């Protein structure tokens, strides 16, 4: 198998390298990719959509169908992870470990044993529990709000600087993952419950598709945001800019919820009790 794989890889590589003979040179301004459509985008984006970041404008306006279905793909990825992994049967783990907060004593509760009542004296701990590191815990607690603020900035400021819904959504999702890694999975799930993930993920896709459908209802083409001018009381060019923002928020919400959903399912193998 290794020999066959090596032969296939070397042959395909040789064919591809032979194919590069016809390719344009490195950073050639006259290459085919840079001569047909992209000059139109670069020169007309500002007057047509009033968005300086061309990448954002092309992503959410000119190629909005593509982005809408990319968002749907991400949502589907989250749903597939959920269906493959989530275990709903309430099968209690053999031993649960509780820790007495004041004395630091660990209690092992056998299967079928009496679980201590919900008091502040005991906290549930993972099987591979290690004492929390003060530096990691404190730094993460201080950083997470700023990471989330930065994520919101990246979404909201995507018109004028590198950023947008995908990047901001991933940053917001990473902040919750940081919580899950620095504390434990149960803390993160308490902050962002599974139902919230499962609701926000399709909500983002719905915001995106709903904006497009609203344009259709207002009498223009699907995803032609200039139709929103009559709703938002602005001129059609500014309406396209605002439409892009609405769509980016939808993308950000969908990506954030889906990333957290996938992480929760993968790290606990669908049990949602003990994570990484």
């Amino acid at each position, binding site marked *: *198998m290794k020999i*066959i*794989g*090596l032969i*296939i*890889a070397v042959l*395909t*590589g040789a064919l*591809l*390298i032979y194919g*590069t003979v016809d*390719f344009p*040179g*490195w*950073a*050639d*301004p006259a*290459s085919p*990719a*840079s001569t047909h459509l*992209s*000059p139109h*985008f*670069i*020169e007309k*984006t*500002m*007057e047509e959509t*009033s968005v*300086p*970041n*061309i*990448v954002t404008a*092309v*992503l959410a306006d000119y*190629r909005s169908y*593509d*982005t809408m279905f*990319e968002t749907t*793909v*991400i949502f589907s*990825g*989250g749903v*597939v*992870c959920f269906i*493959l*992994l989530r275990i709903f049967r309430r099968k209690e783990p053999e031993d649960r470990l509780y820790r007495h907060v004041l004395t630091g004593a660990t209690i092992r509760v056998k299967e079928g044993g009496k679980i201590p009542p919900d008091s502040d004296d005991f906290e549930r701990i993972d099987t591979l529990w290690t004492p929390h590191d003060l530096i990691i815990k404190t730094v993460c607690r201080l950083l997470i709000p700023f990471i989330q603020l930065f994520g919101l900035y990246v979404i909201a400021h995507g018109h*004028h600087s590198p950023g*947008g819904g*995908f*990047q901001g959504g*991933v940053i917001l999702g990473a902040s919750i993952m940081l919580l899950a890694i620095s504390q434990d999975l149960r803390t993160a799930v308490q902050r962002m419950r599974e139902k919230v993930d499962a609701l926000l993920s399709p909500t983002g896709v719905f915001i995106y598709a709903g904006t497009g459908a609203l344009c259709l209802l207002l009498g223009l083409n699907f995803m032609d945001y200039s139709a929103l001018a009559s709703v938002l009381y602005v001129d059609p*060019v*500014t309406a396209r800019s605002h439409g892009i923002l609405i769509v980016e928020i939808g993308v950000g919400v969908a990506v954030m919820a*889906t990333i957290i959903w*996938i992480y929760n*399912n*993968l790290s606990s*193998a*669908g049990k949602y009790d003990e994570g990484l």
Partner: protein
Amino acid sequence: MQMLVAKYNYWIYITLMMIGLYAMIAKNNLVKKIVGMSIFQTAIILFYVSIGAKRGATIPIIEHGHGEGHGAGTHMVHAVDYINPLPHVLMLTAIVVAVATLGVALALAIRVYNRYNTLEEDEILAQIREK
């Protein structure tokens, strides 16, 4: 020699892509196959981003002053000054979709491990043949 200097970037991506392809074909461990898939995707992303490069151009965000309305008519925007935004858009979405597909692949690997207690391909195949 001239051709090699002008097109060395493609050679790097092809090498990277073939490393990923070889890992997907020849590696025995399923997680290593998934890593190979990620390397393959990264090679394609690098290839697309390098297509968008232009000599002497800057990032595709139009420079603009404050409070000048839509910016139309205030100054001309020339396509030579900004790199091609289209490959960036395609790869922006491709990166996030790669994360979603990686999640699905890892979820499948976890299911396989739960069923067969191993991630080695030959051991899984042997267990399937036994049944």
